[in-house]
């Protein structure tokens, strides 16, 4: 199949079928912010920060670029008034949990996000799932997972598995975008509390 051509921020880009808009943008050096994306992992689509504006046959829609397939003739805008506003709100919502996380602070400057906009509830985890997915997809251990759902959802190590593998791995610790200590903290908790 031939190459796909479309437009990102006025620049014509090319892609092969199966590529996502985010991949194409990165290949062409166009920056789109992400928090839950990792090259080695399956797209998750959780943080929604990579949202972009897509014009397709006259219709404008908002899609997350990490899963949106590249298609011929579409026009992608990585920044627009609305895209910026959505990203700003997403960042403000996340900063209610992790106000000092370096990545968030950095992005907040770009989008004018106010870390105190919403009632704070510092729990640090922003549920990007990088640790969970890395452990499952790359390390193949499933030592850490999500428990519960919705606003009660949190990450948790499975002590039986963690005791066996995590000491020698710890690969998930530096993946955490809000605090290098997040995974370590939950890990320590899992190791010190009894399972009962």
């Amino acid at each position, binding site marked *: 199949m031939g190459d796909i051509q479309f437009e990102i921020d006025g620049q014509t880009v090319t892609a092969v079928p199966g590529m996502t808009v985010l991949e194409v943008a990165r290949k062409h050096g166009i920056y789109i912010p992400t928090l839950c994306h990792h090259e080695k992992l399956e*797209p*998750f*689509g*959780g*943080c*929604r*920060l990579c*949202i972009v504006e897509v014009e397709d046959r006259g219709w404008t829609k*908002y*899609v*997350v670029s*990490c*899963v*949106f*397939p590249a298609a011929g003739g579409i026009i992608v805008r990585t920044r627009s008034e*609305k895209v910026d*506003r*959505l990203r700003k*709100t*997403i960042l403000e*919502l*996340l900063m*209610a*949990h992790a106000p000092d996380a370096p990545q968030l602070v950095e992005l907040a400057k770009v989008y004018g996000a106010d870390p105190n*906009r*919403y*009632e704070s509830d510092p729990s640090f985890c*922003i*549920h990007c799932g990088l640790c969970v997915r890395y452990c499952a997809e790359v390390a193949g251990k499933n030592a850490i997972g*999500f428990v*519960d*759902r*919705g*606003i*009660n*959802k949190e990450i948790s190590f499975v002590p039986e598995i963690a005791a066996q593998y995590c000491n020698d791995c710890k690969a998930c610790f530096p993946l955490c975008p809000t605090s290098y200590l997040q995974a370590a903290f939950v890990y320590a908790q899992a190791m010190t509390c009894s399972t009962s």
Partner: protein
Amino acid sequence: MARLETPEALESFRQEILSRRDPDSPCVSICAGAGCVASGADEVIAVFEKEIEAKGLSATVSTKGTGCPGFCEQGPVVVIYPEEICYLQVQAKDVPEIVAQTIENKQVVERLCYKDPATGERAVKESDIPFYRSQQRTVLCNNIKIDSKRIEDYLALGGYAALAKALGQMTDLEVLEEVKKSNIRGRGGAGFPAGRKWEGSRNAKEPIKYVIVNADEGDPGAFMDRALLEGNPHSILEGLILGGYAVGAHEGYFYVRQEYPLAVKNIHLAIQQAEHYGLLGENILGSGFDFKVIVHQGAGAFVCGESTALMTSLEGKAGEPRPKYVRSNVKGLWERPSVLNNVETWANIPLIIDKGADWFTSVGTDSSKGTKIFSLVGKITNTGLVEVPMGMTLREIIYDIGGGIPNNKKFKAVQTGGPSGGCIPEHLLDLQVGFDELTKAGSMMGSGGMIVMDEDTCMVDVARYFIAFLTDESCGKCVPCREGLRQMHRILTNITQGKGKQGDIELLEELAETAVEASLCALGKSAPNPFLSTLKYFREEYEAHINDKRCPALACKELINFYIDPDRCTGCGTCRKQCPADAINGDKNLIHIIDQDKCTRCGTCFEVCPPKFSSVVKLSGEPVPDPVPEEERTIRKKTKEKG
């Protein structure tokens, strides 16, 4: 009876069933749906059986527990055929009289018939009751005629004739074309044309395809799918097999929430019976078409009704939506083309194939064809399931069928479309019910929940309630939904508690926009609807809460006070005796007063004050008058003037 090898064999089996049944011999149908069972239907059925046995009538009179006919408000419902005499609110003690009078002597027991509250007139037949009269029941009508555990009952009513017709006389493409021509739109909520969805799967390259029944009904107060699953499971099964044939799928799934144990049981039984007769399994009716069905019980998470979450759950993983821009009908369950339709959609399919697309499109509006089942609940006289032609107005549904608002209260709004639907105000009561019409009004069809609200309902609190439900049910995967709803719930709660601030409405609007535009799945995208629609139509209520700390509906506990009107209090003591907080002071012949510091605003005094006195009043946004001075508290009896 062995397997039916041909459509003709099915037809002669049907004739055999019919010949065994004397249409003139009495049959007592008792609703055994959840609502009627809760009001004692099981006992009524048992007593009927015993009484008929005792009178030696077993040979001529049959008794059956059936599916839900919808009039839950008046359950247990008993219908006696062939006359179709309908008795309501039947209790076990009424049974001997019914057997003696109606079955033995063909006399109607008047007191058990529906009585029109306005005219006092009795309606003997089901079809004469106003609740049923204005409905058009094509899907729901068989529920009361079928013992859902007996395939013979379904066959006697023409069941599986559509399947026989499709397999015997139509190509799979013709079945698809008929469904496309019918313009049926998905009854689960989004209203996507079913035929186009099917076509997408049929044309997808991958050869292994699936058809799935979405029976994960989770809207509070809605039980349309439940009634069909429990009452007429074969109709859904037949629809699913037809779908499999049209699409080219050989495997179908029922995804049923485990909170519906009777539905699960009935479907398992229906599958077994259909397999037994060769209506399911290999070489169905000798046509060469193979189709098998698997039942999957969901754990009852609301989000699992969302298509990708449902499929992820079916695959055995946590029921979270998938971030995909490829439709499930092309890449769904196990990455294969999968047609997912809801229970009511599937139940319509045999009717479309049997009676034709033209028959189906003769009912409805330009863009919404056929009938729709609604679950009519809330502040409404006749609670229950109603099936109406698309295009009927909300006013007709609420007043003609639903009997209006009880206790002479004023209608305020109707919430349609389930928790993420919207509230439609009074000035839109003449809106025709249809997919696009409801969406235009800021609400949606959803799966058909309809909650009627009266003047005592606070619309800010309604928004808070539904957002709370959705916050609980969010899977928590994406930020706009998990975090956005959490904050929306916080802000709305603050407003209802009198802690609202300037700028709260704008903040809510921003969160709503983010959830609508940026959420991963339909739960998050539609979750702000309760807020957006109430703000659109009842903005002044938000402003009153925020600016004046006043709840116009006098409903928000933190914003109201109870006060006893000294001119109306007779010192009867009813409120004082029932106040759980001991906040009321008074005595015989003493005007009662409420200690505002002790009062918990539970509303007991307001409810128990005899209507002829109505001396307890609710106040909001205004100061509570000072209590009557001690020396003026004695009640002097008004002496009647003679002369």
